[in-house]
């Protein structure tokens, strides 16, 4: 194995534990707007950083791992199902928008937040078979936009200081 490989593996581990800590912090915050499913999405910060530092394969692996681990640690199987649906939707659109090169990390993160919530609403629709789920869609979209923007700005600041790679010491 080349030197760069195990350094990267170690840093991916650091990013994964960072994502899990953020998930834990988020599970502690009683954050409710009376709309189910609205969350800060802090863990997306780690996903965004790995997406910009490494690439989509690494970020996808990190995303899948953190959904599974955070689900088993702080939630249940239902939560994993919803998180996974949201994570897949948001990740696909973030990678797509990043590829176009037309959007900054804030825009990418905003679209990710919106799609995360839209994906979860879609799964809720299929599970409950109730069109009433869509009643929450406008609020969920607005919330996803706002939280995505905040996370995107934070990630953008980190990348401004660290450059295009994981900071090496």
């Amino acid at each position, binding site marked *: 194995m080349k030197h760069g490989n195990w350094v990267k593996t170690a840093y991916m581990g650091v990013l994964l534990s960072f994502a899990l800590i953020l998930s834990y912090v988020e599970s502690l915050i009683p954050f*409710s707007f*009376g*709309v*189910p*499913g609205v969350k800060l999405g802090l863990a997306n910060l780690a996903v965004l950083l790995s997406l910009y530092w490494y690439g989509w394969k690494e970020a996808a692996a990190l995303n899948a791992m953190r959904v599974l681990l955070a689900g088993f640690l702080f939630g*249940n199987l*239902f939560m994993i199902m*919803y998180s996974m649906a949201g994570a897949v939707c948001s990740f696909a659109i973030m990678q797509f928008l990043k590829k176009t090169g*037309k*959007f*900054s990390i*804030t*825009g990418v993160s*905003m*679209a990710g937040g*919106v799609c995360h919530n839209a994906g979860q609403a879609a799964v*809720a629709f299929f*599970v*409950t*078979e*109730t*069109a*009433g*789920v*869509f*009643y929450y*869609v*406008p*609020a969920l*979209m*607005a919330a996803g*936009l706002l939280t995505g*923007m905040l996370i995107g700005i934070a990630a953008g600041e980190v990348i401004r200081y660290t450059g295009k790679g994981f900071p090496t010491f």
Partner: protein
Amino acid sequence: MKKNDIYLATGILSFAALFWLAQRLAAPGGQVTVMQDGQALGAYSLAEERELVFTDGNGGRNILVIQNGEAYMKEADCPDKLCVAQKAISKKGESIICLPHRLAVEVTAGEAAQADAVAR
């Protein structure tokens, strides 16, 4: 932020606003329909004050209260209790959903139809 980001945000916001407006224009409903696993358990008029208990097969329990023309979830034994935190519903299309118990309460039309039936 780039210019494109602003366009994107504006686009998303206007879509959400349109979606919201379309729903606001929906007429108020007269009854709630309760569904579990996509199966209708029953429909209950919002005019009649009552407390309903729903159980799923796995020991999950929800208590739905209908009061002052609104319905809200009074109690649930799921861990997150998101359905209890949701506000009371009375407009057509509004819903309270308890995901752990796969229970959905949705306001549907019906009161008018019932009134007509009584008048006839």
